[in-house]
């Protein structure tokens, strides 16, 4: 009997050769296959997770169609799909393909990246409030990237600077609580302090440059999809693709890392190494998303919250978070574009107005364990 620790049957395991068929546990589908040499392999798929992800995916597609059809020139939803593939009136094709589609893509990518980074950081810190936006990582990325945008004598591109800033902020926050642990509220408040410093640095940079440059950078510092530099979007797409694969590879250790360190060690997770990898992944995703849309950190809180309320607690809801983050971002930007038209509300303000009460609600309800 093979029983090394990493083969424990949480989601996949290799049974003994020619083992009799095993019934799937309740609530799971079991996919099993057997190679010609007789090696059997099986995979357990949680039904509820699949259902939740499918539901969120359908909602996301609906939101996207709505996003493409509404705006200063409203199109019928039935006209959107042909226009997307280049058929129909010239003007609607132009509106959909040239004006709305790039922005929609940016919204989906940034929302997904923020939410994935959020759920990774929460799991890592075992703290439900520890999303990159709250513990100051967004602000760090913004401060550095603004320095690059307004041309303060740095030659690095905004995404690279955002990465440097995010890494600095993460190092500061985690360094400041070294030994104190990341659970509990002190970690969060230390992160808020770090975020306040970087927020002040952003203001400092904006105050030093000419007023026109500062005004141009302003919407981006509160979070907006208006600017979205093209190369940053491409970089984010690549980064998110790689990040999703990495997150799936890390999914199993992640779900074990929700337990105490000792338990996770005992179950075969190299906690230190995995923790560093998860942190890096979260920081990179945040930085790339900030380089596109500015600090819309609330999505990193709301996305995982929605995902967690829908999915079961057996696994870390990675896919569900990704999808609901994109959904929230698309809907928030849609609201920002259309509610007060022709004035456009930056998406960062929309998410803050939604996310603030949500955060307060999380804080005020009777305390439970924060996992």
């Amino acid at each position: 009997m093979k029983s090394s620790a990493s083969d424990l049957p949480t989601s996949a395991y290799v049974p003994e050769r020619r083992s009799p068929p095993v019934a799937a546990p309740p609530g799971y589908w079991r996919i099993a296959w057997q190679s010609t040499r007789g090696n059997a392999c099986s995979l357990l798929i949680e039904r509820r997770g699949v259902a939740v992800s499918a539901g969120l995916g359908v909602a996301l597609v609906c939101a996207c169609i709505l996003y493409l059809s509404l705006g200063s020139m409203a199109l019928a939803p039935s006209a959107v799909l042909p226009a997307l593939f280049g058929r129909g009136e010239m003007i609607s094709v132009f509106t959909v393909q040239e004006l709305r589609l790039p922005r929609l893509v940016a919204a989906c990518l940034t929302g997904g990246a923020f939410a994935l980074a959020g759920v990774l950081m929460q799991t890592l810190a075992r703290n439900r409030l520890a999303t990159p936006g709250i513990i100051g990582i967004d602000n760090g990325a913004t401060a550095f990237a603004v320095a690059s945008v307004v041309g303060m004598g740095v030659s690095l591109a905004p995404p690279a600077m955002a990465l440097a800033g995010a890494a600095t902020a993460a190092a500061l926050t985690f360094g400041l609580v070294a030994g104190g642990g990341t659970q509990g509220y002190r970690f969060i408040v230390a992160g808020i302090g770090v975020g306040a410093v970087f927020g002040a640095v952003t203001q400092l940079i904006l105050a030093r440059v000419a007023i026109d440059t500062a005004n141009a950078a302003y919407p981006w510092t509160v979070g907006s999809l208006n600017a979205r530099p093209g190369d940053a979007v491409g970089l984010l797409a690549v980064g998110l693709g790689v990040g999703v694969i990495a997150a799936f590879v890390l999914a199993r250790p992640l779900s074990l890392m929700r337990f105490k360190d000792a338990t996770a060690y005992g179950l075969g997770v190299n906690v230190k190494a995995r923790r560093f990898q998860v942190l890096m992944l979260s920081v990179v995703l945040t930085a790339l998303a900030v380089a596109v849309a500015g600090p819309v950190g609330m999505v990193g809180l709301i996305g995982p919250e929605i995902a967690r309320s829908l999915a079961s607690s057996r696994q870390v809801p990675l896919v569900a978070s990704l999808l609901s983050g994109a959904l929230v971002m698309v809907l928030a930007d849609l609201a920002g574009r259309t509610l007060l038209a022709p004035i456009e509300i930056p998406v960062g303000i929309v998410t803050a107005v939604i996310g603030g009460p949500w955060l307060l609600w999380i804080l005020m309800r009777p305390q439970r364990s924060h996992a």
Partner: protein
Amino acid sequence: MPLSVGNQRTQITLLLTALVAVSLVSLLIGAGSVGPLRALAVLGGSQDSDASFVVWQLRAPRTLIGIIVGMALGVAGALLQAVSRNPLAEPGLLGVSAGAAFAVALTLVMGASAATMRISVAQLGALLGCICVLSVTRVRGLGSDPVRLVLAGAAFSGLLGSLTSLMLLFDQRAADEIRFWVIGSLAGRRLDDVVAMLPSMLVAAVAVVFIARPLAALALGERAASGLGHHPGLIRWLVVACVALLVGAATAIAGPIAFVGLVVPFAARALAGPDIRRTLWFCLPIGPLMVLMADIIARVAVAPSELPIGVLTALCGAPVLVAVVRARRLPTL
């Protein structure tokens, strides 16, 4: 534990001397072309009309406002910390300043012109913010955990801040009028503003004199305070009113300036020890010292333009916040 540098009378004298010196520097140094020597000549009685305008019409009111705002925010921070028994309670962090700013933005958007009604509206907003915060501390479990309260306050003020910027999107005129005000600055304030905020400051000062003693008793616990003949509920309401008056007036003039109410009582407690009455005395010179120094740096750091003062107080206050949070044992006051 009081720091043992001389006795407290010496410490107060030293702080007052420092305050006089910093006020002088604030009159002498600026972002414009009038240098310290010309300003000094004006103070000595020279007839240089340009320089005398700059010193008496621009820098003097600014210095005066800095002193008053510093005192108000420092004392308000100390009061709020005493009544919520929380060393992290700070008007800026807990959303009291944000409430005042939100109220002002609301009236501006609804068509009021600035200045005249700003102070009373800001005080009303601060009062509402204060009541929100303190009723939150009554929620089970939240009042006993200082850090959690700060977190709720941060969420609250973040929400109010984004609502404020949302309203400013509606209205370009209001946005232009308060864009610089909303991040906190002492620039361009006139003597009228000082006169306008004086009455409420005086009322608050008198009230503070009367509640200092019951507040010190309240530090022993509600029961002990009642046993000593005080009324905890009444004291709490008076403190809320005082904080609203002080923070509202300061915010109306200078915009929401965070972290002053955290750093100043922190320093004052380090010097004065646990007694709230002594702490309040120490806040009087330390608050203006911090605000004036931040303002002087804000003037010279990016000359010829200016920095919002809130940037500097955040740069100096956030590390203090982190230090307090990191302390192994978080003292409940």
